[in-house]
Structure formats: C-alpha cells, structure tokens
C-alpha cells in the first residue's frame, strides 16, 4: 500500500508524514513538487510547512506546482488526499476544498496540544474513528483561521462535511488555557477540518502525523488517519 508524500520547497513535515505512514503499516513514497507524476501511489499526503515561504498567500504558489496538475484531477477522480496545515491551505487554494485560510485572528503563531472532536467518521481518512471521538494532537500555525461565506459554511454543516471541530475550553471555569472561551485561531464555527462531498479529500489545520508514536507528541490519536486510509484503499 503506497502513500505518496509531496515535498514542496519549504515543506517541513514531509518526513514526519512519511514516518506516520510507515508506523501505520503503509509504504511511504516521496513525491517531488516539480514532477508531474504520482508514481502509482494509492493515496497522497500534502504535508505541513511553509511552501514557497507562504509568499502571496499560504499555499497559493504550491497550488500551481507541476505535481498539482496531476494531483488535482486524480483527487477529483477519487484518489484519497489528506492536506495537513499547509497542505490544507493548498487544498483550499486548489479549490479541492471550499473556503480559505487567513492569519490567526490574534496574529501570533501558535504551537500547542489541541483537543478536537471528530464530526465525520466516514471519510477515507477518518473511518477508524467513531463519530464524536475527542482527540488531542499538535496544532502549530500562523495562517490557521478557516473562513468561508455563510452559504458555504451552511452547506458544509448541512452535508456533514465538517470533519473536525476545535473543542473550546469553558471560559467561566478556572483555567490557564489561553484560548478558553474561543478557538485557537478564530476559525469560523470552530472548524478545524473539512472533507469534500465524496469523502476522499480531507484537510485539517492540526497535525495528526506528530501524534503517532510513543514518546513524541501528546498522544497516539493521529495514527487512525493513516490506518483509516490504508483500509479504505484495500476496500476500494
């Protein structure tokens, strides 16, 4: 089972993504932004980082890389694609997912363990979770505020395409959580991740690939992304 991981100039988490694929029992395959081939992989991860320095807009230049010219039609044809952080931004810029990412509303970079709720456990990347599962994985971003117009947001909610939502700590409770009472980047409707209609393309801001191994990260909660896709590929 081959899972491709694309490296763009400025990708940072491609090696962790490859490692997560291996830990889950898959075979990671390195894909290069300048190649117009997907090397016969069964699924693709667009990793986190700062492709092209986040110049212009996060993901805006990566979206026109040669590898995207083959990835976009493949994703539209059903190939499972996961975009993590910068990868999510690239999926939005590619219009494979609706909406856009802008700077965190508080203007600072964040790096923290973040609680999320699984809101769709039927996608290619989330089928090993149960609906309503609460998971904790790293969140680290500058441009993590998910925005879309009201009709798009209503459509996403109506079709069950919000895949993950930030769990917000109670502001009235005694807490040292900096983000009590609000989500960590200002994302509309606390949206942390979404899926396309078919459920093969998923994008999220937090990082499941950093939470797959004992001793690294806050949990092992991210592993099911990768075990899910391996099963979905077998069943496809």
């Amino acid at each position, binding site marked *: 089972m081959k899972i491709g991981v694309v490296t763009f100039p400025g990708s940072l988490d491609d090696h962790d993504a490859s490692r997560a694929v291996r830990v889950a029992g898959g075979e990671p395959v390195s894909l290069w932004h300048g190649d117009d081939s997907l090397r016969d992989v069964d699924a693709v991860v667009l990793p986190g980082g700062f492709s092209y320095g986040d110049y*212009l807009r996060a993901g805006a230049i990566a979206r*026109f890389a040669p590898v995207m010219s083959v990835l976009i039609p493949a994703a539209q044809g059903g190939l499972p694609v996961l975009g993590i952080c910068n990868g999510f931004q690239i999926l939005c810029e590619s219009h494979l997912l*609706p909406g*856009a990412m802008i*700077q*965190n*509303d508080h*203007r600072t970079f964040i790096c923290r363990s973040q609680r999320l709720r699984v809101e769709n456990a039927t996608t290619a990347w989330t089928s090993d979770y149960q609906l309503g599962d609460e998971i904790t994985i790293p969140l680290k971003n500058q441009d993590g505020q998910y*925005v879309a117009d009201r009709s798009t947001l209503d459509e996403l909610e109506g079709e069950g395409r919000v895949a993950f939502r930030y769990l917000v700590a109670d502001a009235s409770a005694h807490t040292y959580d900096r983000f009590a009472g609000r989500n960590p980047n200002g994302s509309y409707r606390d949206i942390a991740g979404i899926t396309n209609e078919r459920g093969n393309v998923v994008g999220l801001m937090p990082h499941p690939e950093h939470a797959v191994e004992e001793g690294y990260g806050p949990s092992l909660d991210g592993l099911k992304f990768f075990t899910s896709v391996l099963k979905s590929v077998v069943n496809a």
Partner: protein
Amino acid sequence: MGNVVVDVMLKSEILDPQGQAVAGALPRLGFNQFTDVRQGKRFVLSVEGEVTDEVLAAAREAAETMLSNPVIEDVVSVRVEPQA
C-alpha cells in the same frame, strides 16, 4: 518598459489581522482620527515595450487566477502605470 499595477484587498467581511495591528498602533503615535485600517497588496507587472490591450487582459487573468483568491479577496483595480 511598461508597467501594469494590480491592487488586491481582502473582502470587507473578512477580518484583517494585519490592518487591526496597524490600527491599534497608530493612536500610540498620536493618530487618533483613524477608526479602521485595512491592508492590501499591490503588484507591479512589468513588460518589454508598451502595455497593449492583450497585456492588460493577461494581467487581469493573472490577477483573478493567482494574485488574488476570490474566496477572500477582491481585485480592486488593474491599470496601466503612466510612464514617468
């Protein structure tokens, strides 16, 4: 050499954190009259020779496809920069 100037702004309904940071700092310098700041982007596209209608059309297409993201931004203007 001719130049085409493209101005892009965040849509008014999208929060502009950078503009807010600037707006928050201006009063510290005594500028109390500005109630809001929105920050945009300007691109200057240069070509050999004159800016023809074709060049301008290409600049408009580039502005819509790459220089702006229509989900969050508007292309405010695409215009020929007068020769100095």
